Structure formats: C-alpha cells, structure tokens
C-alpha cells in the first residue's frame, strides 16, 4: 500500500510487523488507547537484598529464557559496556531468539554481531544502528525485520504495549542497594537517564548495572527504587572517555560556517525569534556554529531564549551560564560540560523520553519548540529527510529525535551541504524516508535556502534575511549539475527493516543491500 509519503509498503511487511502504513503526522491525534502494564513482583520483606554479584545471577533471578525481550539505554553512547556484557552472558547461557529493545545501538556494540549470526539475537528494535550491526542487518543477517523508531516513538511503542520488555538492564553511574539510580556522582557519568525511564516503568524485571555502589539514599534519583528489582555491581559500566568527551572545537570549515550563518540569518528574521523563544539544535559543526552566531544576535538585540531543549552540548551550557537561556531541559548529554552542568545547575533539568517526545502522551516538550535545527544525510524535493541510510543503502545512522522535533517545532530547519562527498544531498527522492516532508519547513545549504511551499508564511522572513532563496527543485538541479544525476541504488528483494513513524505506522522500509551491477 502507498503511504502518505508515497512509499509502497508491501502488505506482507504490514502483516509481519503488525503495523499500518503512515497516513500523516496528525492522523492519530485524539486516539484513545489503554496503556500497557508490567507484571511485577512485590518486595515486602525489608531484609531481602536486591544486590546480585553478576549479570548471570541477575539473568537467572529474572528467569531469563528463550524468546525474551531485553532492553537497554544508550546514554553511555560509544563508551557503553552494558549491552555487550549482558548479551555475552545470554549467549553463554545458550539462550536463543532474543529480541533487543534498545534506545539506540552504536559501534561500541560491534561485538554482538556474532550473536545475530548464530541466532542468539533474532530481533532488534532501535533508534538506529551504526557500525557492524547496521552492516549485519543491511546484509540480511537478522532473522526478523528490524524496527527503527524515533526517541519519542520508542516510548510510545513501550507505553502502548507494542513491545513488551521482559528484562530491562539499566546502566547507572551510581546506585544504592535499594535501586535508586543517578546519572552522576560515579566513575562513568552520563548526565541523565532519560531514555531508561520508560524501561524502568514498563519492564517486568528491572536490573540496575553499576560500577559505583553508593550509600542509601542515592537521591534525587532519576530512576526510583520502586521500579528496580536487582542491583548488579560490575567492574566497569563503560569507558568514561567515550561516554562524555571534551567539548568539540568550534568548526573552522568555511562551508559549515556559511550554512550556520545562513541558518541564523533566517532564524532571526522569523516572527518566532522573540523574547522567551524555545530552541533545539544538534551537535554537528554547522549546528553548533549557528548557535554561536545566534548568541551574538541575542546579545545585540537583548533577546533571551526561554528554554533550550534536547541533547545538550557545552555551547548551550555556556549560554545558560551567561544568562542568555532561562532553562535547559535535557534528555541526553554529548560532552563533559553538559554532564557537569546538569548535575549542578538548578536551571538545567533532566526530563524523561516520554516528556521529551512521545507523540501519544498528553503533551511533549517537542510540541513547544519554536525552532529545531537539524541535519540530514539526504533531503528530497518533497522535503522528506533521510537520516538512516547512506549513499550505498547501508543502515548507518539513527532517527534519534529527528522526526519528533520536526513534527513538534513551529519552524523546522534542516541544514545540509548541497553535496555529501560525491553524492547530492538534495535529491529527487531520498533513499529512505525517516522524517516526512510535511514536518520540514526550511532547508539551508551553503548555496542558499529553500522554503517548503506548505509554509508560505515563512517566505517573508526568507526574503528579508538576505540569504539567496531557491526552490528545493532548483537546489536539487544545482547539485545534479555538479555531480550528475545519480543512478538509483540497487537493493536486494528482502526487506530487512522498517522505519517506524512516531505514531507506530510504517513510513518506509529498508531493503537488503547488494553489490552494484553495471548495465552492460
């Protein structure tokens, strides 16, 4: 069936995944549903300890068996040890047909690929997959169709009961023996535990994994002992150097700086740029540079940001400290500056993944955004964005909060160079749709910007901001004029993954890759 972004979703995929096609961002507005509930075991006996000495013991106490769904969070980013140590133990126990429900998976998890190949892991749900897991899925090595959801979509998926977590393993920088978990104060601090909150609430069994046991009470706790069954101590939950790195140096790449300048010139020309505006940006070079440019204008015009949202990095923290931002509301920390700030600054506040972006709760922070500044691997003439598959069709990225923030913000800006290497980033049709064009308002390139025709109200700002204006088709034509019209990627027949829209429907599918074959 053809969905609202024109993608043909085979019926067998709808059947196999139990999902409808995407019918538009607001299609499920006002839908009534009953939330799922976990099956929990009471802990009445105050003398019974939650402490377990090993991952194996935790798995045994949770009654781990074939076919279970195991969940993880990704706040330790590329420094995470938890996924690998748990999956190794599951593999050693000889368990089969395990489903992983992760908030995201990265290159740190390359070691679990053999468990996909030998049938230990047969199903994966994740925001995205980088590294060798992405290659394994793209090469058809995972038995089931992988599901890639957004950060908000994952919480919805769990709260709706679309996925039921049997055991949640929650890496925690600090824990007390009762299971109060905090993201700070330990050896491997990650700043927040936002994405683990739904796991703690909805999993049948919840195991905290920590390398820093602290005296009771470990409060204020991001995750409370009322939801935690066991506390497992290990030598190390992650590599602190990879969990929170030093702040990235501001870019000196002139192309990125030009895009950042154009982005800021446009932002400050819109009616949304006024005292108290709400803003989210990423951590790419152009995004950070645009924040720096924006701060200059804020100082000149004496305009303050009411709230800065999202994944946070040091540049936003500095603006908070300078008094240019009222509050930072945080679901993920990208560097040490952000980790330290959320642990110490009362105006820098941790929220849950549901509060951040779940489309099916009663109102998420993303809906309050005035601006979100995003990147994309590709954007097409329908303004659809791809943040998952690369120019060979390989799964190499993650949705993150891209579709969530784009859907929520009053003004969604996607910054992309016209070309990514030899490939046009502005193209006729993206390889994979992850964010629907109806949610994307403006595309900024180093050549100029294009406004989505669905947003004629933003044209006035575009005309007055001094940035060259093109239609999205003109940008595409300029890209093709430089590198030529790309041949379509050749895929195999098998569908290896679906891209789940925020509301749980299928916005696109990802096919198995194959070697390019020349016509003659």
């Amino acid at each position: 069936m053809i969905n609202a972004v024109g993608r043909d979703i085979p019926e067998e995929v709808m059947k196999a995944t139990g999902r409808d096609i995407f019918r538009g961002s607001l299609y499920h507005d006002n839908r009534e549903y009953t939330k799922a509930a976990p099956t929990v075991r009471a802990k009445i006996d105050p003398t019974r300890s939650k402490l377990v000495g090993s991952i194996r013991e935790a798995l045994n106490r949770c009654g781990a068996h074939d076919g279970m769904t195991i969940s993880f969070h990704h706040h330790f980013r590329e420094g995470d040890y938890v996924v690998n140590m748990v999956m190794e133990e599951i593999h050693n126990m000889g368990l089969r047909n395990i489903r992983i429900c992760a908030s995201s998976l990265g290159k740190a998890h390359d070691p679990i690929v053999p468990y996909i190949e030998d049938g230990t892991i047969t199903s994966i749900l994740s925001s995205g997959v980088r590294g060798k897991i992405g290659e394994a899925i793209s090469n058809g090595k995972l038995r089931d169709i992988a599901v890639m959801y957004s950060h908000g979509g994952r919480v919805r998926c769990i709260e709706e009961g679309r996925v039921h977590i049997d055991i949640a393993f929650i890496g925690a920088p600090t824990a007390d023996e009762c299971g109060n978990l905090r993201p700070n104060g330990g050896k491997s601090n990650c700043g927040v535990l936002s994405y683990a909150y739904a796991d703690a609430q909805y999993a049948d069994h919840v195991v905290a994994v920590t390398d820093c046991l602290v005296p009771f009470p470990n409060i204020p706790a991001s995750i409370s002992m009322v939801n935690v069954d066991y506390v497992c101590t290990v030598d190390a939950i992650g590599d602190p150097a990879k969990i929170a790195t030093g702040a990235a140096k501001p870019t000196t790449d002139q192309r990125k700086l030009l895009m950042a300048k154009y982005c800021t010139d446009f932002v400050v020309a819109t009616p949304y740029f006024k005292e108290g505006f709400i803003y989210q940006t990423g951590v790419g070079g152009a995004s950070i540079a645009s924040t720096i440019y924006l701060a200059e204008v804020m100082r000149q015009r004496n305009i303050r940001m009411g709230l800065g949202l999202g994944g946070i990095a040091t540049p936003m923290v500095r603006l908070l400290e300078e008094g240019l931002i009222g509050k930072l509301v945080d679901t993920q920390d990208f560097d040490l500056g952000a980790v330290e700030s959320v642990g110490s600054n009362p105006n820098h506040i941790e929220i849950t993944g549901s509060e951040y972006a779940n489309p099916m709760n009663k109102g998420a922070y993303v809906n309050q955004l005035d601006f979100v500044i995003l990147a994309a691997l590709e954007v097409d003439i329908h303004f659809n964005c791809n943040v998952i598959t690369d120019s060979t069709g390989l799964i190499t990225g993650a949705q993150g909060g891209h579709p969530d923030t784009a859907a929520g913000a009053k003004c969604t800006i996607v910054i992309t160079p016209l070309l990514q290497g030899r490939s046009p980033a502005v193209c006729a049709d993206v390889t994979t749709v992850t964010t629907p064009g109806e949610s994307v308002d403006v595309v900024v390139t180093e050549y100029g910007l294009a406004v989505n025709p669905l947003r004629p109200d933003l044209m006035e700002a575009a005309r007055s901001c001094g940035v060259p204006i093109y239609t999205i088709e003109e940008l595409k034509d300029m890209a093709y004029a430089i590198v030529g019209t790309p041949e379509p990627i050749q895929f195999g027949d098998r569908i290896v993954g679906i891209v789940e829209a925020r509301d749980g429907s299928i916005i696109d599918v990802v096919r198995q890759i194959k070697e390019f074959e020349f016509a003659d």
Partner: protein
Amino acid sequence: MSHPDKKRLRRSMMFLNCQKPALIKDPYIYQPDSIMLDLEDAVAENQKDAARFSLYHALREIDYRGVERVVRINGLDTPHWKEDIRVCVAGGADVIRIPKCTCGADVHTVERDVLAAEREFGREEGSTLLMAALESCYGVLNCLEICKASDRLIGVALSGGDYTRDLQTGITGTGVELTGARQHMIIAARAAGVQCFDTVFTNLGDMEGFRRETETIHMMGFDGKSLVNPRQIPIVHEIFTPKEKDIIFAEKVVQEIDSKKAQGIGVFTVDGKMIDIAFYDGAKRTLMLAKAAGVYGGNLV
C-alpha cells in the same frame, strides 16, 4: 575603447588551487568579487598539466555567477606559461595574472601570446584582460612603466612574500616593510589610471591583524586585497562598504554636478563643502561600492 570590465569592482580576490576541483567548483558561494585560480605556486611541479585540465573544465562548465575569474599563470622563467595562456584563453578566463612581473616588456611578452591564443581559439581580440604581480624591488620601481604597458592591464598587485625577501627582510606583521612599495604602487597605478591590489595576509589565526591591515590599505587608496581564505571576504567587504553619510553625500554630489553642469555652473557647495567636477568620479566610486555591498539601491550608478 577599453574593455567594459576593466574598472569593475575588485575588493576581494580569493586564491584557489587549480589542483583541487572541490575548491574551484563553487567558490562563488562565498561571494568574492574575483577568484584567483592558481596554476603557479600552489600547484606541484608534476601536477601542472592536471591543474590545467581542471582549470579548463571549470572555466568551460561552471557558472561562476558574475564572480570574475582571474588565473595566475606560471612565471615567464618557467616552461609552463605559454601553455597556461592557451588554456586560459581557450577556457575564457576573464583576467590573466602575470607573476613576478619586472618591467613593461614582460607585459608585452604575455600580451603577444594572449593575442595569438585569442586568434587560435576564436576569442574576441582584446577580450582577455591582464594584471601584473610585482614581486621584486625592480618590479616595484618599474610600476608606472608596467601600469602603462598595455590597454588590457587592469592593475597591479603587490606580492609581499617575494618582495620582502628581495628587500632582505620579511613579513613583520607591522606593515613597515611594505610601506614604501604600497605607497609607490598606489601612486603609480593612479597616475596610469589602473587599479592596485594589496598582498595576502596568511595568518588565519590573527583576524584582528587582518582587519587592521585591510583598514590601512583601504585608507591608502587600494582597490582591494588578495585573500587566502573565504572568512577574510566579509571583513574586506565590510571595510570597503561606504558609511551611510558618505553615500548620501556622494548621491548629492553626483546629482548636483549633473544638474549644475546643464546650467553651466562649475563650482558650488554641497552641505557647506565646495564641490566641482573633480569630485565626480570619487562620488561615483562611492556609490558603486555601496551598491555592491547592497546598501545603495539608487540608480545613479
């Protein structure tokens, strides 16, 4: 009659290495007035041919959107310059920059080959402009002769690195070592009615120093500056952008001279200042600069 673009606006002239197609494919996005496609020092000796191919393709295939395309050819003491000229003319370069120019005869030498190439490739005769880089004490002292050597010559540029080596000093950051050459060249260029461009500023870590140097050469009367990085462009353009009061005054001067001329009046006052025809070109130039910077929307230029 001189080439219509001979005196066009040239505040910023950005060097780009012809050996790097990714650099030369779209420098117009940074909006310099001119780009300087380099076949000389930036190109490795065994890559001259590849750079020429790349240059030819760029000149023929890329729409530079009004940005002037200057090509720096190799020196007259190398085996490359003749083929460089053929490629420039065949590709349709706007201006050829002669490096290490020492005297009027150097300009004549290049001019002869350019004319031959224009005939060979069916280009209009005289369509290829020239500029001369002065990189030695001898060249600087011969500046007036060089400026007057050809009607194709748009102007002269100081090349500070080689010049200061010849002077037996170096770039000090104070500008003192360049003062004499700058002063001499701008006087000679103005005497000959051509433009004058300042040397590059290579320390990208010192943007304040770059700004100070640009302010200095702007005050000295230079038309523009050679640049090595896009981030230098907006600073040059800002400094060369006339102030609002200067624009208003220039507008009045042009309008008053035009109307008074019709009435047969030669000398009069504008805002209390004595004005005559000698102010006309200067006022026009102010308005041209203002228009290029997007701060003047009138139609007097």
